[in-house]
């Protein structure tokens, strides 16, 4: 247990014991608090476009003050719009964290890496802790590092699909090559998939639709928490190796060297 207790996720100088970032959209506002508690989440995303300060059904009224708010720029179609939404979030008192989403495609909602990098560069210079949502591409990821991102958030599958780690091999490349926390965002549909991402060495998992569309939202949040913790523990323990091809020869080919 000590291994996990001392294990912290650090993003932009902020430290978290939870590696589960929970979304707050697509389900009833009354359930947000229970979901956060069961998830053990310390960071919760919210779409700034849903904020309705002082009005009816204002999502900000339902997120406990104890968690770190991670406002996102959903609705932005280019870097300029993302920058303006981020600044609005800060003005509204949502803190310095910003998850940049730039989406120029209303059908698949795939992120536009190029525009997201541009927005990252500007916002990082303004002191934001920038967490960019991206398509898992190594070259783009390196550009995000240069631009000042605090972590990288590659998608596992198109947002909302619950299809899991469709981009697994490419996420693994990012985990192996990039010296920033890699947080798998979008597409994670089951606790087992979240667990797998963590076993691979992802720093955290972000999920929303999988929980929002579950039959029992708080219980599913709890299931994700356990899966993420299990996956992290497995990663830290050092997974036993899996042989992709053939078996381990009982008479090694190089045995003759010792003859």
């Amino acid at each position: 247990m000590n291994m996990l207790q001392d294990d912290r996720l650090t993003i932009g100088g902020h430290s978290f014991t939870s590696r589960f970032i929970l979304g707050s959209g697509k389900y009833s506002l009354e359930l947000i608090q229970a979901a956060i508690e069961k998830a053990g989440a310390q960071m919760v995303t919210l779409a700034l476009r849903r904020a309705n300060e002082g009005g009816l059904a204002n999502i900000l009224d339902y997120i406990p003050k104890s968690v770190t708010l991670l406002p996102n720029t959903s609705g932005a179609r280019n870097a300029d719009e993302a920058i303006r939404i981020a600044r609005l979030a800060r003005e509204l008192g949502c803190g310095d964290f910003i998850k940049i989403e730039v989406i120029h495609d209303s059908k698949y909602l795939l992120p536009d890496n190029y525009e997201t990098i541009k927005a990252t560069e500007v916002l990082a210079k303004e002191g934001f802790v920038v967490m960019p949502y991206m398509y898992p591409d190594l070259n783009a990821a390196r550009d995000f590092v240069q631009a000042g991102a605090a972590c990288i958030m590659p998608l596992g599958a198109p947002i909302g699909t619950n299809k899991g780690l469709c981009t697994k091999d490419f996420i693994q490349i990012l985990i192996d090559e990039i010296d920033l926390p890699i947080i798998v965002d979008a597409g994670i549909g089951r606790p087992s998939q979240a667990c797998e991402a963590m076993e691979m060495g992802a720093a955290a998992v972000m999920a929303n639709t999988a929980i929002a569309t579950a039959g029992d939202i708080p219980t599913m949040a709890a299931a994700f928490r356990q899966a993420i913790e299990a996956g992290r523990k497995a990663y830290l323990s050092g997974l036993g190796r899996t042989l992709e091809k053939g078996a381990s020869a009982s008479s090694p080919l190089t045995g003759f060297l010792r003859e």
Partner: protein
Amino acid sequence: MQQNEPINESILSDAVRQDLKKERIDHMTYLPGMEVLDSDIGQQVLTRTSSYNYHCYTEADVRRALSHENRTLDDFGALLSPAALPLLEEIAQAARRETRKHFGNSVCMFTPLYIANYCENYCIYCGFNCHNKIHRAQLNAEQIEKEMEAIASTGLQEILILTGESRSKSTVAYIGEACKIARKYFKVIGLEVYPMNSNEYAYLHECGADYVTVFQETYNSHKYETLHLQGHKRIFPYRLNAQERALKGGMRGVGFGALLGLDDFRKDAFATGCHAWLLQRKYPHAEIAFSCPRLRPIINNDKINPMDVHEPQLLQVVMAYRLLMPFASITVSTRECARVRDNLVSIAATKISAGVSTGIGGHSDEISEKGDDQFEISDERSVGQVFHDLQAHGLQPVMNDYVYV
């Protein structure tokens, strides 16, 4: 010019029958000042629709369409066909899954605000048509502000501004002023006004509007010609290209709608989906919205009805839109009763109006000069009631879902 298209009998009053005998201008020729786009979208919609034969689909085609993850226009055609009617429950289950996947349990709330009912068109089924003897009115800036203040006090954050189609009475500048006032009270501003040129849409976008809805009414140009006897609206292709001009003008999203009951509803629904689908492929960033209006009675003709578009057919159309474009917003208006609307939002619709008046000056008690309604509404619930009823259905009312930047 006149065609022998059979018209929904419930629309035809004696006066309309007489007017249909008169000579009319060519409905396919642009009038001076109308922007002509270099685009083949409209033609593609018409070509694909004319070859759509809904009788050729079988139950197996419908099941195949349901099994696809990404549905084609041919799948859409199957889902709209008579062969799909016996499978409505299965289609509803699939539609609901798609809706939940993309929207969770969120349902956006808004209200329409009619700021003028002057109209230069003669659409024989519409209460605002220029020959219908109704009380006309137009709100001035002060009155618009009063109406918006009254609406905002109900908690709504999204407004849809409507006018009758009179370019001379409700000028682009007048609509722009209304948008600027709306920016003070609302986060999302939609427009449902006469089609205009892309530079005019750009101006209104600057004034704060970011969504434009234009109902094509029917995509059958011959039928269209017999229903729209006078005015700018008579020019079929100019209306057909309105959404594309709006996108070129910088609008974030566009809405589509055929008025079900005017013509063959399966063909019109197919054309509507086809239109939205083709435009989204050309403009991938565009947000897409569908409206699903059925014909309603109007002042001076309470007989008007949508003929063969009964509730199962309406449901079929709404669900087919959802399955073709799972990410699209779908609105159900107060043309439908509370029971139908509440069930449609449980299955496929994602936007619902509340506290609706389709007349002029209907929201504020301080406006004495009121104008008559466009059509009779079937759901008079207040914002608070709709909010409560959505929650009772396990749905989350959403007041705003956009940041204007």
